[in-house]
């Protein structure tokens, strides 16, 4: 893998930097690479030397018991941990080969490329339209009012929510059901046209039907986005992901194609966890 020593701007390279040599043959070149990432909350270490490559246009699931560092890991990928006071990170995280923790990196630009959906849906107390338009507006992506409307509609369609909200675009987002709110949050994240979508237990607060809709949506979206999803639900990981990474006490124990990890894991610990012997 190519190392970029200077700090290249977090721009949107049209060519995959990693698509060199043998990797060019892979349909899923490395999108995000973390090398020996450790993260500390004050004196408490939450991640230990996590090295993991995340392939583009596929779904990578992070599983593991509660408190093992899944959310923490996810939040290192768009530097959301920066806003937690007294955090310190060691190691390297690259997006398309560029170090996202290098000096001079524009965090705002990074977060535009790496979108995030949270565990509890968190729509703004604004209208459905304004929720989706928010990221477009603050990043000045739309050239006109018409363009803004089109982008909002396209994002809502992608999130499979358009038909449900097209007649209530200007009503409060808080009036939507939980599942709709979460899809609105997905639409809101898609509206700034990220490459990567990070999802932290996006369906954990939803009923089975709403969960199924989110899972179908994730399946749809992976054609165009690189998706990393945290879930404590192993069936869900098995259903939606291509690759699964198992975390344990802040360490990455094993990463493998999902089917392999669930049927034929390399590590005993993984086996114990996926067969429900603890957790």
């Amino acid at each position, binding site marked *: 893998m190519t190392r970029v020593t200077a700090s290249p701007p977090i721009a949107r390279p049209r060519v995959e930097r990693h698509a060199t040599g043998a990797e060019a043959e892979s349909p899923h070149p490395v999108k995000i690479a973390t090398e020996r990432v450790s993260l500390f909350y004050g004196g408490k270490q939450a991640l230990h030397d996590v090295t993991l490559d995340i392939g583009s246009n596929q779904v990578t699931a992070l599983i593991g018991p509660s408190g093992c560092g899944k959310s923490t890991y996810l939040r290192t990928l768009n530097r959301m941990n920066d806003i937690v006071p007294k955090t310190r990170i060691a190691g390297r995280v690259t997006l398309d080969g560029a170090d996202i923790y290098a000096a001079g990196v524009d965090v*705002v630009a990074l977060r535009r490329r790496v979108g995030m959906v949270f565990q509890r849906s968190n729509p703004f107390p604004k209208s459905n339209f304004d929720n989706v338009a928010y990221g477009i507006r603050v990043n000045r992506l739309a050239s006109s009012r018409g363009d803004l409307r089109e982008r909002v509609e396209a994002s809502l369609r992608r999130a499979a929510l358009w038909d449900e909200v097209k007649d209530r675009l200007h009503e409060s987002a808080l009036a939507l059901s939980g599942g709709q709110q979460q899809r609105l949050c997905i639409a809101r994240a898609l509206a700034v046209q990220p490459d990567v979508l990070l999802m932290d237990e996006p369906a954990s607060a939803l009923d089975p039907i709403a969960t199924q809709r989110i899972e179908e949506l994730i399946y749809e979206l992976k054609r165009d986005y690189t998706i990393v999803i945290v879930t404590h639900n192993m069936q869900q990981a098995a259903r939606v992901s291509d690759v699964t990474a198992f975390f344990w006490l802040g360490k990455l124990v094993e990463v493998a194609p999902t089917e392999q990890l669930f049927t034929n894991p390399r590590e005993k610990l993984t086996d114990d966890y996926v067969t429900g012997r603890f957790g």
Partner: protein
Amino acid sequence: MKIDRVALTSARRRSVNVLMLGSTALCAALTVAALAFVLGYLVYQGGSSLNLAFFTRLPTPVGEPGGGMANALLGSAKLLLLAALVGVPLGFMAGLYIAEFASPGPAFALRYATDLLNGVPSIVIGIVAYTLVVLPMHHFSTIAGGVALAIMMVPVTVRGTEEFLRAVPPSLREASLALGATRWITIARVVVPAASRGILTAVMLGLARVAGETAPLLFTALNNRFWSHGWTEPTASLPVMIFTYAIAPYDDWHRQAWAAALVLLALVLTANVAARVMVRRPAVSPG
């Protein structure tokens, strides 16, 4: 024997329960009764003197019947407008600083200072405004009274702003930051709008409170039997008018004082109720 004791304690517990319930409910009822009494008495005393002239006419000279307090109503409105225009932005920015930017030490100190300012007796605030505004200008004025009330509005606004900004769920900030918004944009477009109704409520309650303040106006805005033009003349206001009329030895002035008190209370209560209704409305901020 054992069973008896259990029965005894449970009987005692029941009587303590009844006693506590009874006495607290009584005190609660007394509180409501106090409000009802004040309201009822004001309506009884002031209602009869309340007519259109009260709202449209100037006060008449002693002995001449009729007249109103139009100048005091306008004076109070101008004073409150000044208090809001000066005190609210100041308090809002300070509250924003404390809630969003100050580190814990300075935040604590600022909060403490704000509470102290809130506890300064209003007459003392009047003296300060007198020294700051009246002495340099050499006369009493709407500005001086407005400044006094503005100083009183500052701590109310600071604490209201801070409290409601802090109450905005962190998940909303995270959502905004994760969409590539800067910290400033997040504060301006998400945090402040989400807190705005609460802040507005605090401001209205504050204004309702200072609307009835008399002491800080006595030697800043003073009083005026006529219209006060512009901002640099002494002005009448409802509380000072009530004070002046109530201590005067004339019956018809007393009646007018009651009427003014009724109007003042009605305005304050309306502002209070409006503020409460505002916080309840389901949240959707335009834009």
